[in-house]
């Protein structure tokens, strides 16, 4: 393995911009790494070798011509979740229904990455249409957790988090509808951030649940996440729900946090997230993390958010309702899979048979849930009630943030579970997002940062930090301070303890 792949994005950028190493060499090192280990990890659905090397070459040429780098991340290789459109590069959302679809346009996130000179290596595996917590719902086979190939890498963005944990990419983009950036970050020992809803444009993000979906950075360090956050964030006229306000100063906050204590920062521990259903090893890691924050000078108090316990059921009405409508467009008429078009079936039959064949079980389950919840006569009881719960959860956050600057909890109740373990038990699978969902419903910012390995099974555990909407910088300040202290105490970044890959999957 080339030492280049072990470097952080910030380190790689510094070397590339100083022309100590070329962006092409860096891209090639990562492509080689992908070739060497991705058979075991299966983080990628599509590797765009030509596009990556072309983008890297363009960065090198500009630097050689004496131009300033297009951004602090120019030349750094990145893995893009396959739910964001890429002009001329396949985008499948992990679904048979979009197999072979080549989008004619770039998502705004994709465009911003390209403009920043970030080198897109390829598209990462995910649960079909971002529905799941394990990537086992991908139509193209699951991704394996680099820490233990028999275990899940989290989901839906398991491919993105696994790719950086396996050193196949320095950075990745995920999308988080109920925890799909943070939970994979937690179980792979990496950093994952769900920005404030509206902070990053959703244009070109294939919608699962429009009012919840948010793209964000996946990285191995808090600073790297901040650098990526600044590249992709900002108002976009193409997305009516994007926020027309300056991007919070996340990079400055990350740099400041890494070199400072947390004196004067008030941290609230969410009382409702703990106890039954949480692995002892996860709770011990969380308690140690809270102790670390206190040692850094933070003022830690317990905060009750009584409605958070209703977040999961509310989410499973709102998200499927929106999904049932968002996924209606996959009907074989204009793009994607088309079956039974043999002259003997009507357009309606072709639609129906294609959807039957193209969607996996979980997607169908959610379309049915959502269709039911929106049906006349049930709307008020289900979708309507869920929206009220959403308001109550937002109020819980508002009340809590009057007392504290950030809230903390475990990111997910357990470490990575075994592939196949929860496939037949949707409820158990859904519980993986218990702690992450409230921030999607309320739209505030949240991060998962590694808090060490569980004493139970030696697998990574994540600390979730939550901040008010548009106060994303607080995540980075607290996250960076915690990360620096934890790494110093543990003798190095957690992700460096990932076992050497290459065994059988």
């Amino acid at each position, binding site marked *: 393995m080339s030492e280049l792949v072990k470097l952080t994005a910030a380190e790689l950028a510094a070397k590339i911009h100083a022309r100590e190493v070329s962006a092409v060499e860096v891209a090639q090192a990562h492509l080689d790494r992908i070739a060497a280990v991705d058979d075991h990890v299966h983080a990628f659905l599509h590797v765009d070798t030509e596009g990556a090397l072309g983008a890297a070459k363009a960065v090198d040429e500009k630097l050689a011509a004496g131009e300033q780098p297009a951004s602090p991340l120019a030349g750094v290789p990145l893995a893009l979740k396959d739910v964001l459109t890429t002009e001329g590069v396949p985008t499948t959302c992990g679904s048979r229904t979009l197999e072979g679809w080549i989008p004619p346009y770039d998502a705004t996130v994709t465009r911003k990455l390209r403009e920043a000179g970030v080198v897109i290596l390829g598209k990462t595996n995910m649960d079909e249409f971002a529905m799941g917590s394990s990537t086992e719902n991908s139509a193209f086979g699951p991704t394996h957790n680099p820490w233990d190939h028999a275990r899940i890498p989290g989901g839906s963005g398991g491919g993105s988090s696994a790719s950086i944990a396996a050193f196949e990419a320095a950075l990745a983009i995920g999308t988080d509808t109920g925890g799909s950036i943070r939970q994979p970050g937690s179980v792979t020992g990496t950093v994952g951030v769900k920005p404030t809803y509206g902070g990053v444009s959703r244009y070109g993000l294939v919608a699962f649940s429009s009012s919840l979906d948010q793209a964000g950075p996946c990285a191995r360090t808090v600073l790297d996440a901040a650098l990526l956050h600044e590249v992709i964030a900002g108002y976009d006229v193409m997305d*009516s729900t994007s926020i027309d306000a300056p991007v919070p100063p996340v990079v400055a906050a990350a740099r400041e946090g890494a070199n400072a204590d947390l004196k004067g920062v008030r941290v609230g521990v969410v009382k409702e997230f703990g106890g039954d259903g949480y692995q002892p090893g996860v709770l011990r890691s969380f308690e140690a993390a809270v102790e670390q924050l206190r040692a850094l000078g933070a003022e830690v108090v317990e905060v009750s958010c009584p409605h958070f316990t209703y977040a999961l059921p509310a989410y499973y009405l709102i998200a499927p309702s929106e999904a049932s409508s968002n996924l209606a467009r996959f009907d074989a008429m204009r793009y994607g899979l088309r079956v039974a078009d043999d002259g003997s079936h009507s357009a309606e039959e072709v*639609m129906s048979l294609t959807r039957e064949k193209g969607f996996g079980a979980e997607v169908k389950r959610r379309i049915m849930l959502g269709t039911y919840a929106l*049906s*006349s006569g049930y709307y008020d009881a289900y*979708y309507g009630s869920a929206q009220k719960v959403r308001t109550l959860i937002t109020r819980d956050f508002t009340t809590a943030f009057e007392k504290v600057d950030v809230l903390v909890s475990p990111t997910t109740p357990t470490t990575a579970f075994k592939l196949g373990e929860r496939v037949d038990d949707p409820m158990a699978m859904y519980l993986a997002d218990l702690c992450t969902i409230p921030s999607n419903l309320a739209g505030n910012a949240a991060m998962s940062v590694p808090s060490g390995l569980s004493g139970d099974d030696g697998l990574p555990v994540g600390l979730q930090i939550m901040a008010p909407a548009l106060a994303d910088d607080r995540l980075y300040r607290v996250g960076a301070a915690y990360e620096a202290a934890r790494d110093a105490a543990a003798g190095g970044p957690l992700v460096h303890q990932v076992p050497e890959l290459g065994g059988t999957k």
Partner: protein
Amino acid sequence: MTAVAELMDYAEVIERFDPVLGLEVHVELNTKTKMFCGCANEFGGEPNTKTCPTCLGLPGSLPVVNGKAVEGAIRIGLSLNCEIAQWCRFARKNYFYPDMPKNFQTSQYDEPIAFDGYLDVTLDDGEVVRVEIERAHMEEDTGKSLHVGGATGRIHGAEHSLLDYNRAGVPLIEIVTKPITGTGARAPEVARAYVTALRDLLRAIGVSDVRMDQGSVRCDANISLMAKDAEEFGTRTETKNVNSLRSVERAVRYEMTRQAAILADGGSIRQETRHFQEADGTTAAGRAKETAEDYRYFPEPDLVPIAPSREWVEQLRATLPEMPWERRKRIQQEWKLSDEALRDLLNVGAVDLVAATVEAGATPDEARGWWVNTLAQEANAREVELAELPITPAQVAEVITLVTSGELTNKLAKEVVQGVLAGEGSPREVVEKRGLKVVSDDSALLAAVDEALAAQPDIADKIRGGKVAAAGAIVGAVMKATKGQADAKRVRELIIERVGS
């Protein structure tokens, strides 16, 4: 093919039933761009050339509301005396159909931008009926399907279908009336008059091309009957494909006679969509729906709510142009028209045309004379709307000017108008081409006068002797010689002059 429906005599329908109407009019706005994307909003064009990821509903694409369309919706609402919502949202109407790229229509549901208004409608005999407006809401149009093969041009029985998404995403305003009751025998006329008044209003405020023939105004007519002693509305049918003013009236009348026959026979009306058939004026059942469609409306999460500020609304209200009914009142005063004359003007749809002709320089009386008489007859003979005649108000004004200046006689002017209608060019061009000009050149006339006097010396003597009336014979001879193109009055003057000299 379905059997020919039994129909009840119209007079009997009215004797036994009260009709209830509900009219839904879809108006395509004439904004530069579509409702939710930057594609051109233009009629026609090569199929699928005015499209982008958003109006094609491609995965990942998002809508952005066209501010001009919101403005148009508010202007329509204000013209219809509606309340304008302080805050409203779009909603998704979910159903599968290939001409709808997302398989949901971005529309408005329980939060329309305008609601609770009315439109006063004047019938042919001057009676005014107030039509209450339930709501006017914003939505997007669908693409167009072309069903190939099969007899009816409908999807049923077609071999395959072609889709053109140029129209997908065009801004639409749907205007829905409250149930219109108590109109009795005049229901069909009220329906037509309402759509006519709405069309005139939309044209006046300039928000739409209002071309029913191009589908920029489309009417769906909900019709039901209730027995004279009934307390509740009957089951209604919704007739679509009503694409002209005349069709609106015919469709309502037909449905009334069809439904009455069924009800009188002890049958019941099936709640269904029916299609108006222009050719024979009947309606045909659409595909039967086993269950009521459940559109699963919910607020559109891709768009933020719309909260038009009161300042903006008031500004739009203040800049509304004169409404057609206000204009009619003003015109009646300015042109000094009797109620009857105004009604004639309205009945032939000539108000705008006369006004434009006056604008181009004619007097109101002259302009009215041409449009209400000669041209209205012509339109009638051709079975077209007056405005569709191939002559412009400016051309009519030009003809009037030619008559006033003595270059044309009234008789010749009619010929010129025929020439214009026949596509021979402008009035002046027709005059040139057909050689219709009044001979006003005195030298040419003098030659003809001298010739006539020389040919009939006895009459010349009579005139010379003081019998001026005898000049008529010479005038006749000159007119004959000039093929009627001479100004008879001038000819007479020249004769007196010649004889006296």
